[in-house]
């Protein structure tokens, strides 16, 4: 089969309704919530919708250190696999172990119980370079 690729004309559907304004975003379709000492990272509603049913999520163990934009894991759907890119440099604090048994949480609750990892940024100034909700919407809708 050819890779899943939706017709662009139907691609854009009210993204803003599904892009919480209190989060930061990357062009790799991750969202980042700044919890103070650590940040929580997940993938966006748009990303999970493009992927389809998620059947496996591969995440690093706590203690792993990441460079910004380093591949830190992958999300497998029924059809394909996608790499996850670290939005900022830092150290993994927690991985969402619930996803080991319920990877579908990434689909059903991408901004809540479908979170991926928390990490402690080594350079918090990198957070300033992320997209806000409007910027991400503009990026996605092209």
């Amino acid at each position, binding site marked *: *089969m*050819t*890779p*899943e*690729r*939706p*017709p*662009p*004309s*139907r*691609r854009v559907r009210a993204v803003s309704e599904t892009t919480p304004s209190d989060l930061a975003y990357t062009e*790799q*379709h*991750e969202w980042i919530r700044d919890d103070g000492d650590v940040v929580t990272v997940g*993938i966006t509603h*748009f*990303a999970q919708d*493009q*992927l*389809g*049913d998620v*059947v*496996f999520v*591969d995440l690093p163990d706590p203690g792993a250190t990441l460079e910004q934009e380093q591949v830190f894991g*992958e*999300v*497998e*759907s*029924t*059809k*394909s*696999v*996608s*790499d*996850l*890119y670290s939005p900022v440099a830092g150290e993994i604090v927690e991985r969402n172990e619930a996803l*080991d048994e319920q990877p*579908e949480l990434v*689909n059903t609750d991408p901004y809540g119980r479908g979170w991926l990892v928390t990490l402690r940024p080594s350079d918090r100034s990198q957070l300033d370079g992320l997209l806000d909700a409007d910027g991400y919407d503009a990026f*996605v809708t*092209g």
Partner: protein
Amino acid sequence: MTVDRGTETGDEAAVDDLRRTALTDHHEQAGAKLGPFAGWAMPIRFAGTLDEHAAVRDHAGVFDVSHLGTVFVEGPDATAVVAATFTNDPARIDDGGAQYTLCCDERGGIVDDLIVYRLASDRWLAVPNAANTAAVVRALELATPDRDATVHDRSGEYAVLAVQGPVSLDLVDATLATLDAGTGLANGTSSFGVVPVDSAAGSGWLARTGYTGERGVEMVVENAAALPLWAGLVENGVTPCGLGARDTLRLEAGLPLHGNELSVRTSPYAARLGWAVKLDREPFRGSSALAAIKDRGPEQRLWGIQVEGRRPARAEMLVRSSGATVGYITSGTVSPTLGRPIALAYLDDPLGPGDRVEVDIRGRPTAGEVVKPPFLRRDG
């Protein structure tokens, strides 16, 4: 993560160029996610691949597979044309019968795998894969010059609906009854049988064939009949399914997909489809090459691999044994029914069921066991 979005403006025109089935507008209105498939805009999923997959295993689902070709061979010598073009023996079936067969080239490579339906002694319907329809038509036409038969590609005129699942026959019959298109046709037709269907909206055929491992039917109907049939089935509780679920279902059933498991570079014997090649009859396209391949035996064979852990192997990943490369994955996913990874792979002779191998999943060697498909046995 990276998302294949197709943001380039040129894609808009490219998508507009895709062929649309009689149901594409309806699918869009139903919120289906469409994708390009062999030049057609096809529904990849409706509610979601896993839900659709479960519906087919537990109840019934309907697929729009109108991208499949509908090619008619007609005339007194129609059976001879089919016999000269494909590998299986059409003399083994009667009017109202269907047969899985292969279209091979002169070197014995697989141009396509398909089902042929004997509608009458002088009328056959071949249903090739969308991407290979033109090649199958050309192959059939090579056999017509000395014979009294003609080949008609009517792929644009017919819709193909597959209705599959344990209760599919009852729901098809209930739907056909509401369309005044006959009673008990699905339940009254045996496996690999085909019967005519006529409704006010259009006519066609119902066949007890499929590609999911479940019991079910495939219906080839005139385009005008497609929407009433689709809508009636859905109203009767049949779940709309996309090509995503069709792929996970056929993989659990161990059924090969041309383009993944089958190609002109693979022989029927390597694909373990030798049962669909009948050499004890008049010569046909590729028969002498196939006889030679059969005599010396294929160098690789298609088997299943059950990979350990939860990460699925994917197409093109390498398979190793004792450090040496011994094959490659052709398809792989997490089996929605079994909840663990399954894959098909070509493996060097004499590897086979029970052997231990390693799959290189993006640099991580992952242990697996060679098994004989299907991964899931159903009562059909």
